């Protein structure tokens, strides 16, 4: 589902034939074939957000491509391009997306992509010497491709990809959005808003707005600092290599200034306009994320638990913003987020094990795979348990455990399958389930929120609608 065949096809069609460069590849005594490299990405690859956005840009293709046209005496099945030397040196790096950029040239492409296979080992060995002249080859373990490009063309193409390290003001909003991981921030703000809405107090739109704004700013700050710390690691992982600092769109100083410009007003807003407890929690969360979680990612698997706490704090902040103090209900909501993190993150990291290992990240999925699956299952079941706890703490009515049972059962089922099978498919399913499970759970909690029966004057109507404004006194 991460493939974008259309954009790849345009890359294919754009490759050009360069006849005059035949001499450069005389070393290849294979029968000629022009092959467009189509890097078939493993469908279980990570979220496509970054991939799709850089597909639009001409990204460096590790695989140089050139269509080679030569007189072919007879059609010979082409050899496997799998060149051990190429592979061993550059296989890993080739996996970083290798969408062939459109090579501008007048001649149309003459051949389509072809897979090459060679039954015997002997000719393959000979092929390797020739293949060595092609500088790189993208390898997924089952689809070898050949790509040939003249070295001058390759140099020219790479030269074109040099960019000035100058801030383009028009791009800044987009850059800031990516620096602050705007989608993640939006999710964090949503959980904080849910925390606010679940608190048994009259709804105050101003405080609600200020609290969510402050939480959002704090989250932007934390995310920016995280990216600032992790530039070389992000460069080496497929999922993260299009981040603004990795690409040099802004300088590290700029990123830190942006983080401070978000974090300081955010925490100040929370402390002064809402209440000091919420401000403290916001600052604590920033510190936990940037100074504990980020370094711990490379030191020990406990980073996942710290990360779960980081995720649990925003709804607690929302609640304290409304109620002014830490109550069991706040901790329950935090508990939902805490438990949710494990099936979410463990499933995500399951399919990223190679990247994590190469990048030096210590994650449960790499170092303790059995524990990874056990913990995911355990916490999926815990979600159901916490839902049952909600009426006991007076956060919701008894209907909540009932209506949330189906989704809790479903995620537990997927977690159980992940536990038993432990393969990429079940991990992916669990991850995607977790993405909709959380908003659904919060929404159901909101609709089952216990009405405040203590004040007859502002007896809220049964919260059938999810809109918190209906509860305004």
């Amino acid at each position, binding site marked *: 589902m991460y493939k974008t065949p259309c954009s790849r096809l345009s890359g294919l069609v754009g490759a050009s034939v360069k006849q005059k460069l035949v001499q450069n590849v005389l*070393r290849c005594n294979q029968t000629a074939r022009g092959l467009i490299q189509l890097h078939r990405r493993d469908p279980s690859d990570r979220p496509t957000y970054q991939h799709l956005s850089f597909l639009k840009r001409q990204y*460096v293709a590790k695989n140089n491509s050139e269509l080679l046209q030569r007189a072919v005496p007879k059609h010979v099945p082409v050899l*496997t391009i799998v060149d*051990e*030397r190429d*592979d*061993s*040196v*550059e*296989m*890993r*790096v*080739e996996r*970083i997306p290798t969408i062939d950029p459109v090579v501008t040239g007048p001649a149309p492409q003459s051949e389509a992509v072809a897979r090459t*296979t*060679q*039954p*015997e080992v002997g000719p*393959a060995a000979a092929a*390797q010497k020739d293949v*060595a002249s092609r*500088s*790189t080859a993208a390898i997924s*373990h*089952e689809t*070898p491709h050949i790509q040939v490009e003249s*070295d*001058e063309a390759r*140099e020219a193409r*790479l*030269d074109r*990809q*040099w*960019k*000035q*390290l100058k801030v383009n003001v028009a791009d800044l909003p987009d850059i800031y959005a990516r620096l602050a991981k705007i989608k993640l921030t939006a999710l964090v703000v949503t959980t904080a808003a849910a925390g606010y809405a679940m608190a048994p107090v009259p709804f105050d739109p101003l405080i609600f707005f200020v609290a969510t704004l402050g939480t959002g700013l704090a989250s932007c700050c934390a995310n920016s600092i995280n990216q*600032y*710390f992790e530039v*070389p690691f992000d*460069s*080496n992982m497929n999922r993260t290599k299009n981040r603004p600092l990795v*690409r*040099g769109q802004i*300088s*590290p*100083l700029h990123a*830190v200034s942006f983080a401070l410009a978000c974090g300081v007003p955010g925490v100040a807003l929370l402390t002064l306009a809402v209440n000091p407890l919420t401000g403290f929690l916001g600052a604590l969360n920033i510190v936990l994320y940037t100074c504990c979680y980020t370094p711990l990612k*490379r*030191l020990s698997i406990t980073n996942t638990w710290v990360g779960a706490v980081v995720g649990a704090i925003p709804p607690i902040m929302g609640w304290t913003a409304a109620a002014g103090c830490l109550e069991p209900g706040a901790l329950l909501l935090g508990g939902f987020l805490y438990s949710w993190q494990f099936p979410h993150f463990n499933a995500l990291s399951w399919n990223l*094990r*190679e990247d994590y*290992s*190469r990048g*030096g990240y210590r994650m449960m999925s*790499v*170092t303790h*795979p059995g524990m990874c699956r056990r913990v995911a299952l355990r916490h999926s079941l815990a979600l159901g348990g916490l839902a049952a706890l909600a009426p006991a703490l007076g956060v919701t009515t008894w209907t909540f455990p009932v209506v949330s049972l189906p989704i809790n059962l479903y995620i537990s089922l997927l977690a159980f399958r992940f536990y038993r099978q*432990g*393969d*990429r498919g079940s991990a992916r399913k669990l991850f995607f389930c977790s993405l909709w499970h959380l908003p659904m759970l919060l929404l159901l909690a909101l609709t089952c929120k216990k009405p405040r029966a203590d004040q007859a004057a502002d007896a809220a109507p049964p919260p059938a609608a999810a809109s918190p404004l209906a509860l305004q006194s």
Partner: protein
Amino acid sequence: MSARCLTRRSLRPVALLAPPRPHTASAVIGRFCSSAQTQRVKAAKRSTFRPAAGSTHDWIGPPNPLSNLRPIVYHVAEDESELEGRLRRLRQETEDWNHNFWTQQNITFTKEKDAFIISHLKAEGLTVRDEQGRRRSLGCEDMATFYKSFLDTNRTRHVNYNKEWYRRNFTITLLMARVALSDMWRTVTRKKNSSSTSS
């Protein structure tokens, strides 16, 4: 000052990986076309890109195929102050150091991974390539043993790299801040001087 510590501790780029730059394109091509892995490593290290003469900015290039880090060509201003020079040299040195680390990491990873796969296949009595000539790959669980062992064997190296990277990152950012402030100060004083001389 941490800069002193850094110079003391600075890694001289390994000769293998850092040829004098720039080198000619043909040399690059020649090396690329040889099948020796180390030569390819050498060639891939430095690009021959040079920005246009009138450029006043740094330039950043495509990711290096081995280390996945983007090289930067730093602009040297004529009136570069001592602070700016220090910053530029520190950034260049950090870039080289980073590049060396990640190149080594990636190469080691791929080599060890292949060795692991081959030894595993041999242990199971399978050939490296299957009937269609494609390379066999191992299942997730088998590879997981390798990933874990890779992390464990390299743990100390990673920890040391992290510490050094954080230190360098902070120093560079602090220097950048100082440079930015001193630039601002220079601009302000220059304006004041020009306004006082003109009046």
